[in-house]
């Protein structure tokens, strides 16, 4: 059965696309600003077939994949250590609190100086951008493990490793998972925005390049492509999360 929410969402989405299509075709919106959705799709089909496109996609996606992995694994490890060692946490807390107030992209030139011109500075930038969300979520999850569950662990005389594996991590899992979702999104943003500003290749750069050359069809085609990738990825994570929630009997 289709829910009311799904119907409303679909109507709004289809309506917006249709309105844009009409506005573009009738000339109410100039093609120099926005092109019709149908034209975007057509341009996307052409772009997908162009020779250099695969290389850009591969470069962007592999950078995202590396940054995402580093951010999730590293963020979890750091969050875990900071949770466990209170004085380290007190030392670093101000940084964590102020972290997302820093304009990370301003450091990109510095990273290039340090890491050279290859994909490394971009990956480092995206990793730094995504990792702190994972750190904060991991700490929040571990902080909120109910004390009575830890007492229960002691009643069952669990070893420290068992307590962590059997009690703390599963209890913290919902928070950790939401940190993971943020880390995924921030990795995409970090890489594509970085390419946009300073790179000489990758999807982000291609969008900027098309923009500079008034190549609207290609620009919108690429934006559409990015949207498609990110949405697909989000759906995958979302489906996985739902499955976990259902295993806890919490899905609707």
């Amino acid at each position, binding site marked *: 059965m289709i829910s009311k929410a799904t119907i409303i969402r679909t109507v709004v989405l289809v309506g917006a696309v249709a309105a844009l299509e009409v506005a573009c075709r009738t000339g109410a919106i100039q093609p120099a600003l926005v092109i019709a959705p149908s034209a975007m799709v057509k341009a996307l089909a052409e772009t997908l077939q162009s020779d250099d496109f695969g290389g850009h996609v591969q470069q962007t996606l592999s950078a995202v994949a590396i940054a995402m992995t580093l951010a999730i694994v590293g963020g979890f490890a750091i969050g875990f250590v900071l949770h466990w060692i209170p004085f380290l946490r007190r030392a670093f807390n101000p940084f964590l609190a102020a972290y997302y107030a820093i304009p990370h992209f301003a450091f990109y030139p510095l990273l290039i100086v340090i890491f050279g011109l290859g994909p490394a500075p971009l990956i480092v930038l995206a990793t730094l951008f995504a990792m702190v969300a994972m750190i904060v979520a991991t700490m929040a999850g571990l902080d909120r493990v*109910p004390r*009575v*569950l830890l*007492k*229960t662990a*002691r*009643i*069952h*005389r*669990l070893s420290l490793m*068992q307590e962590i594996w*059997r*009690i703390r991590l*599963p*209890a913290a*899992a919902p928070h950790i998972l939401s940190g993971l979702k943020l880390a995924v999104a921030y990795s995409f943003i970090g890489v594509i925005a970085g390419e946009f500003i300073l790179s000489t290749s990758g999807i982000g750069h291609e969008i900027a390049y098309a923009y500079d050359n008034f190549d609207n069809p290609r620009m919108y085609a690429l934006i559409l492509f990015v949207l498609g990738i990110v949405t697909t990825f989000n759906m995958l994570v979302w489906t996985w999360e739902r499955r976990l929630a259902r*295993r*806890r*009997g*919490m899905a609707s």
Partner: protein
Amino acid sequence: MATRLASVPVAETYKVHARLDGVTRIYPPRAGHGEVHALGPLSLDLRAGEFLSVVGPSGCGKSTLLDVLAGLAVPSAGTVEFEGKRVLGEVPDGVGVVFQEDASFPWLSVEDNVAFGLRRAGMDAAETRRRVDFAVGFMGLKDFRRAYPSQLSGGMRQRVCIARTLVLQPRLILLDEPFGALDQQTRLLMGDELLRLWRETGATVLLITHALDEANLLSDRIGVMAARPGRFIDIVGTGWPRDRDSRLAERPDFGAVTARLWSYLRGESLKALQGSSPPLGGEAR
């Protein structure tokens, strides 16, 4: 048919099953207030195989008493013994605890919750299954075996926790207001079940409750605690037969015991109400 729970005839092996001797518990100062003298000095001999309840105004240190007795908290002074051995910062084998707060694991189904301790102890699958089946049935959770705690009411989750404790066949069972989330009728029935369990297993039971008639109905002895710092004002023996159930409440002498408990507690509860005790703390989740 023989009972499906192995009985633990502690009464034949020990006279005093657990002993608190001059125990106090003082919580160190925290932000907002100074140190809290929660308990004692208090002494108690828990007789092997008896059913003892503890009543007292909220915040008087009942949960703290349970933590100390179970080896979950170290007393600030005094000693704790279980089966003749000192309890020192570790929960001894043979002690089962049901906490006041919901301690079910939300990521495990009811049956996996109940089997948790057995699997950790390396019990073989057949015996695990047998004990889980029994405990799940005993607690009336048969239809909810595959449900998750989030799908159950608070009272049912508490029953999951009781079942998880039962399967380990503890010789000393400590229960901290386990029926707090239940309505009065279910409470009475659960009380009968608890009595049946106690009779069949021969275990020693210490029950913390705030319901005076419940304490009266279930117990051989009732420890009445004073407002914080908690000490026993008196330990009232009921003299009820071992083979009792909730129909006991119809006896003419039943009301007299409840009245006696209340006469002790009226003043203490007033003290706790007006008193200097910091709000919440132990009661908060």
